[in-house]
């Protein structure tokens, strides 16, 4: 039987097309509803506001307010990673789409990659909105001199976060309603450990083991580095260790996601739970 053979170039092109299409769906779907966009910018500012006022009422330095605003912007990425990356196969399964993806001749990694790109773009716009609104409303100080390093670290942090999201997406693949509970569990505790609302590493008041646990989350490392540059006027020499750590996260997490995805897909097919809904 003569079957068409597909070369590496064609396969790559085909996967890139799929990734682009998935990214397009995410951007298009995510921005079609103005109320969602507005809510996703204003809601975090409410919480940020509460913490900025808390700092003020405690008479603490205003730079901590700046740190909260950066943290609030970064939380937008974490929320997107949790609900729109990690839980995405679950949503697709509930909508009846997972079957469609599973019979399509493209790598699931391409789909996840497309989702990630779309998520990064959508969330970057929202994070920028949170940042601008937060700074405008609360008038907190920033000292950004090295914009290149700040942007580079931001990019590394986001890539590391979405790589983690890909790992979670694979692990969540066979989840049913546990998705809700697991995601709930990964919100506040991660906000706490990653220092989204207060610096959680290099602070003597925080127990060492808490700081150590915190560095296992890419957001902690990235956020600390961005704060050092954007709030305290640091440059690449002050954050090189952060950069190394973030690159290490990416190098570990991305291949891990691929392995986890293959493992979970195979397990799902074996147990017959891959496209089973309402679990």
């Amino acid at each position, binding site marked *: 039987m003569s079957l068409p053979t597909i070369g590496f170039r064609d396969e790559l092109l085909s996967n890139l097309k799929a990734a682009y299409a998935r990214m397009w769906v995410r951007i298009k*779907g995510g921005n079609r*509803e103005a*109320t*969602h966009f507005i*809510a*996703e910018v204003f*809601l975090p500012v*409410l*919480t940020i*506001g*509460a*913490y900025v*006022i*808390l*700092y*003020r*009422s*405690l*008479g*603490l*330095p205003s730079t901590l307010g700046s740190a909260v605003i950066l943290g609030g912007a970064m939380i937008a990425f974490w929320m997107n990673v949790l609900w729109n990356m990690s839980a995405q196969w679950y*949503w697709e399964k*509930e*909508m009846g789409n997972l079957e469609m993806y599973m019979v399509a001749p493209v790598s699931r990694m391409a789909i996840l990659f497309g989702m990630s790109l779309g998520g990064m773009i959508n969330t970057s716009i929202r994070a920028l909105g949170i940042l601008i609104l937060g700074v405008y409303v609360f008038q907190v100080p920033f000292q950004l001199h090295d914009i290149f390093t700040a942007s580079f670290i931001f990019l590394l942090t986001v890539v590391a976060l979405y790589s983690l999201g890909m790992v979670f997406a694979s692990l969540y693949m066979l989840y049913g*309603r*546990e998705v809700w*509970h697991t995601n*709930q*569990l990964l*919100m*506040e*505790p991660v*906000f*706490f450990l990653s220092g989204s*609302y*207060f*610096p*959680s590493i290099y*602070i*003597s*008041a*925080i127990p060492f083991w808490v700081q150590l646990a915190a560095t296992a989350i890419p957001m902690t490392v990235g956020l600390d580095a961005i704060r050092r540059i954007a709030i305290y006027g640091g440059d690449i020499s002050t954050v090189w260790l952060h950069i190394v750590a973030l690159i290490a996260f990416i190098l570990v997490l991305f291949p891990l996601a691929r392995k986890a995805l293959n493992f979970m897909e195979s397990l799902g097919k074996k147990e017959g739970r891959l496209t089973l809904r*309402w679990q």
Partner: protein
Amino acid sequence: MAIADFARSTRESFLVGWKIESNWTDPVLFATYRLVQPLASLLIVAFIVIIGGSLPGPGLQKAYMARIIVSNAFFVYVAQITTNMGWLVNTDRSRYEVLKNIYISPGTLHPYFVGRGLVSVVNATISVIVTLLFSVAVFNGILNLQIPINLLSANLLLLIPATLLGVAGLIAVGYMLAAVSIVSNRLEFILGESVAGVFFLLGGVIFPISALPSWVQPMSAALPVTYFLDVVRDSFGLSATNHLFDMAYLALSTVAIIIVGILVFRRAELRAKRLGLFDRKSEY
């Protein structure tokens, strides 16, 4: 509808809700989940105060810590009831597709929402108790911070009625959110969290309302949640407000919210029937 029927339907709805939301794992894991989230929220603010205390200045403000522990623990009622009831219509209409069947069965829609709201109340109560116990164990036990909080000395004559009133008002708010959710599309993602966010900022949860800009303070002073948390803190001896006024305001505002909640729900119900929204599926 007879009260007995209403109570029976509420109980059955509660049991369904309990099975869906709570009975998904073993009790230890369930209690862990119920603890981790509120405790992490509490630790965020607690560490802000601890870090503040480590900086040059007045040192650790222990009374402030006590205030934050109690307010945060009881804010779980607000967060869980508003978020879950804001989301309820979406799951039951779009995901499980049962809302229309509940609606056409005689007289079950209202007790259904109340019953499902009560599940959040029970879940939140477990969280509140576990969080309070754990906080005292961590801050006064492990970290030995000597925070002035004594759970055994709580004035139950204040605490219990305030909690009952606060929870009743919150279920009424949840009722309104469910009503809005029925007649709106895709707002369910943001409804509950928006309301919880506003209450967190304006309810005097982690700072006194006097810390808010002066033009916001009247809004804060009008919110029943502010008084609910005030009385709760009073019952632990953590603030000295006028109990009688606070309780009276809480009681009156709760009655007012329940009335408004029922009116809003009726309007939404009529609109939903007119537009055929009881079986609408959400767009994703």
